[in-house]
C-alpha cells in the first residue's frame, strides 16, 4: 500500500540485462512476449543515481507497472518524443478500448519487445503489427507516460464532465505568449522518453498507428539533451543557452518532496487522479542568435548564476544555497525560485529541441518545457505569471506552444490500464 514499498519493488525490478526486441520475435502472440517480459523482470537492484547511469548504458528496462506512472520521477533519459492527440471517436467504449490497446503496447515496448505479433514473420499480405525500426534495440529505459487534456472532460463528450479536477485549469494567456494552435492543446498526450531516440520515436509511431480512426496526432515534439535532471548526483545538464538547468530540481528519490509537490493526494479532488500528477508542456523558442551576441556578464546576470560552474551569484559552487537578494531583481533564477513564489515548486523534465532552421535561417531551437506538479494553480501558474511579467530572459525567449494534462496514476499490474480509475 505504501509508496515506499512500491518504489522498492520498482527498483528491484530494474533489469540490467534487458531482453532485446529480437528475443521474442517470430513466436507469434503477445501472450508469449508478455511472458518473456515478466521472466526478464528480476535481476539487479539499482538503488542510487550512479547505478542508473550504468542501467542506461546497459539499455535496461524501466518497470512499467507501479503506483505512479514511470517517466515522472524516474531518472530522466537522454531523448524525448512527445505527442499530443485529438480524440476523433465519439464512442466512450471505443476510447476505453484504445487506452487498453495502448497500455498493452506500452507494456511490451517498455520491456523492449515489439508490439502485437512483431515486425515480421506474420501474414505476407498484411503489414506487420510492429513497424520494426526498433528491432534488435534494447529497451533503452523507455518510459511511456499518458495524460488527459481538458477537452476530454468537455460536456456531452464522454460523460466525464463531472470528473474534471479543478486543478486541471485552462491555462491563461501569459504576457508575451505567442501560441501556435497547431503546437498547443490535445485531448491526450504521450511522453516517450528513452536513451535511444529511435526507441522513443518508434514508441510514439506505434501508438499513433494503433490510434488511427480513434485518435489523430495533433502535434509532436522531439527532444534531446535533457535540460532537467531528477538525479542530482549526475552532472546538471545544460540548456541551449549554455547554462546548467535544473540544479534545484526535485530529486526522484526525494519522496517527501514528491508527495508534497508532485503526486496528487487523496484529498486533493478528483479521486481518480490520486497518485497521478498534472503536466504542463510549453514549447519555448529561444532567440539563439541574439543570445549568442549577448555579453557573458549580461548572460550571467540574466540567469543569476555563472556560466561555467553554475554557482549562484556570490557563491562558488553550483549547489550552494542561492542568496536571492544578491541577484538582479529580475534575474531568472531569482524569480523562478520557490522563495519568490510562496514556495511553489514543480518537477521539471524538459528537453532541448532543435527543429532545423526557420525561413529566416535562424536556428529553430529552444526548450521543450515539461513540468509535473500536484496542482497547476499552485505550481506552474504562479511561477509563470511572475516570470512572464518580469523575467529579463523574456527578451530571448518566446512561448510558442502550450498544453496541460491530468496524468493518471500508474498501471498497477497486467490487468490494469491507463485511465481505468477515470473510465471504469
Amino acid at each position, binding site marked *: 500500500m505504501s509508496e515506499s514499498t512500491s518504489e522498492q519493488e520498482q527498483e528491484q525490478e530494474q533489469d540490467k540485462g534487458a531482453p532485446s526486441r529480437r528475443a521474442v520475435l517470430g513466436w507469434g502472440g503477445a501472450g508469449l512476449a508478455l511472458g518473456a517480459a515478466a521472466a526478464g523482470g528480476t535481476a539487479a537492484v539499482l538503488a542510487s543515481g550512479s547505478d542508473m547511469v550504468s542501467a542506461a548504458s546497459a539499455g535496461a528496462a524501466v518497470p512499467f507497472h507501479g503506483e505512479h506512472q514511470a517517466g515522472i520521477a524516474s531518472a530522466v533519459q537522454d531523448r524525448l518524443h512527445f505527442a499530443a492527440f485529438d480524440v476523433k471517436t465519439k464512442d466512450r467504449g471505443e476510447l476505453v478500448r484504445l487506452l487498453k490497446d495502448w497500455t498493452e503496447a506500452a507494456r511490451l515496448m517498455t520491456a523492449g519487445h515489439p508490439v502485437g505479433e512483431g515486425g515480421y514473420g506474420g501474414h505476407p499480405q*498484411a*503489414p506487420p503489427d510492429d513497424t520494426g525500426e526498433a528491432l534488435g534495440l534494447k529497451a533503452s529505459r523507455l518510459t511511456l507516460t499518458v495524460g488527459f487534456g481538458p477537452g476530454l472532460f468537455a460536456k456531452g463528450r464522454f460523460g466525464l464532465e463531472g470528473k474534471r479536477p479543478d486543478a486541471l485549469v485552462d491555462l491563461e494567456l501569459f504576457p508575451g505568449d505567442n501560441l501556435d494552435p497547431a503546437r498547443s492543446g490535445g485531448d491526450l498526450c504521450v511522453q516517450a522518453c528513452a536513451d535511444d531516440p529511435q526507441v522513443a520515436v518508434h514508441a510514439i509511431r506505434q501508438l499513433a498507428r494503433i490510434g488511427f*480512426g480513434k485518435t*489523430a496526432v495533433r502535434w509532436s515534439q522531439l527532444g534531446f539533451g535533457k535540460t532537467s535532471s531528477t538525479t542530482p548526483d549526475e552532472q546538471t545538464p545544460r540548456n541551449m543557452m549554455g547554462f546548467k538547468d535544473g540544479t534545484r530540481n526535485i530529486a526522484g528519490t526525494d519522496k517527501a518532496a514528491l508527495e508534497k509537490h508532485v503526486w496528487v493526494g487523496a484529498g486533493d479532488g478528483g479521486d481518480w487522479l490520486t497518485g497521478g500528477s498534472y503536466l504542463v508542456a510549453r514549447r519555448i523558442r529561444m532567440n539563439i542568435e541574439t543570445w549568442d551576441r549577448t555579453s557573458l556578464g549580461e548572460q550571467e546576470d540574466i540567469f543569476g548564476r555563472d556560466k561555467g560552474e553554475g554557482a549562484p551569484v556570490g557563491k562558488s559552487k553550483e549547489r550552494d544555497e542561492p542568496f536571492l537578494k544578491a541577484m538582479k531583481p529580475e534575474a531568472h533564477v531569482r524569480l523562478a525560485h520557490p522563495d519568490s513564489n510562496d514556495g511553489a515548486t514543480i518537477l521539471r523534465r524538459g528537453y532541448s529541441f532543435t527543429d532545423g532552421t526557420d525561413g529566416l535561417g535562424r536556428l529553430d531551437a529552444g526548450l521543450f518545457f515539461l513540468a509535473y506538479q500536484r496542482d497547476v494553480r499552485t505550481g506552474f501558474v504562479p511561477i509563470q505569471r511572475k516570470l512572464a511579467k518580469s523575467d529579463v530572459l523574456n527578451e530571448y525567449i518566446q512561448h510558442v506552444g502550450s498544453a496541460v494534462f491530468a496524468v493518471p496514476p500508474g498501471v498497477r499490474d497486467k490487468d490494469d490500464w491507463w485511465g481505468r480509475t477515470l473510465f471504469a
Partner: protein
Amino acid sequence: MRPARLTVVTAVAVVAALSAVTGCSEKSDASGDGAVRVKASDTACEVSTKEFPAGKVVFEVENKGSKVTELYVLFPDDRIVAERENIGPGTKASITAELKAGDYEIACKPGMKGDGIRQTVKATGTGTVEKRSPEADAAVASYRKYVQEQADETLPKAQAFADAVKAGDIEAAKKAYSLSRIGWERTEPVAESFGDIDPKVDVREDGLEPGQEWTGWHKLEKSLFADNKIDDADKKLAETLIADLTEWQKKVGQAEITPTSIANGAKELLDEVATGKVTGEEERYSHTDLVDFKANVEGAEKAYELLKPITSKTDPALSAELDKQFAALNNLLEKYRPNKAAYEYTAYDKVGEAERKELSDAVNALAEPLSKLAAAAAK
C-alpha cells in the same frame, strides 16, 4: 502516378519474398524442387531452364553482379506478372508467380533501369493456378467487369474534354477536365499495372524522368488552369491522350486480377489520396483534387464491397471497422460537395489547413484497417 511499386498484378506474387529473408530459400536450393534459378549479373540473365510446368512457379534469383538488380516476369506484351526489386549484389531472392501455360519473358535489370536483359521462357502443360472459392471467383469477375465499365465510360468523357481542347474552348475544357479523370482514378492501380500507360496519361511535371516528354492530363491541366491558353501542341496532346486511353480501354480486361490484388489495389487508392490528393499536389493547377479524392475512395469502396462476402467471414471486426470508416470519410467529403447531384467539389486551394488535417485524419483512419484487407481476403 508515382514510382513503380508493387502493382495490382504482382500482389499475388509476393508470397515468397519473405521466405528469402527467413532462409527458406536455401532449403529449396538444396532439394532441387523444380524452382527456376536465375543467375543475374551486370551483363547477363541466365535461367536454369527455359521450359517448366505451368502453375505456381518459384524463381530463385541470385545477383552475381556488382549492381543492385531487379527481376521481372513478363507477359510477351510487357505486362508484369511478378517482380522483385532491390536485389543487392551477392544476395538471393525468390519470387513466386502463378503462370498459365504460355510464353513469358524474364528480365533482369542491373541498376534497376531500362528494359533489362531478357530471356524468353515457356510454361507448359495443364498445371493451373490455385482453386479459388466461388466467392473469390465472383469478386474477381465483378471487379474485372467494373474496371472495364470504368474504362468504357471514361472514353466518351475524355473525348468531350479532348474535343473542347481541340476547339480551343478553354472554359469548356476546364469544365470537362476533372470529369474525364473519374473512371481512371477509380481504377488506377489496374491501369498502373500496364506499366507504360500511366506515365503517358497521368504523370505530373515533377514525376518526369530525364528525357521523358510530358504528356497527358496534367500537361493540359497546366495549360488550361495556369497558363490559361491552348496552343497547337496542346491540341495534339489531347489527341494523344485519347489514343493512350483507348489503349487502356483495350487492355484493361486482360489485367491479372486476384482477390488479394483487388484488396491491395484498394489500399493503394487510399495511399494515392494520402500522398497526392490530401496535399493538393495532384491537381496543383486546377485544384480539383477532391474530385480525384472521391473517385479514389469510390474505387476502393467498390473493391471492398466485392470482397466483403469473403472478408466478413474471415475478419468480421475488420469489415465492421471498414464500413464505419468508409461512411465517415464519405460523410466528410460530402461537406465539400455543394451540389449532391454532380461531381463538383470545393476547389482544394479553398480548403483550409485545419480542414485538410481533418481530411488527412479520416484518410488515415480508413487506410490503416484497409491495409489489413488483403490478408483477410487471402485467408
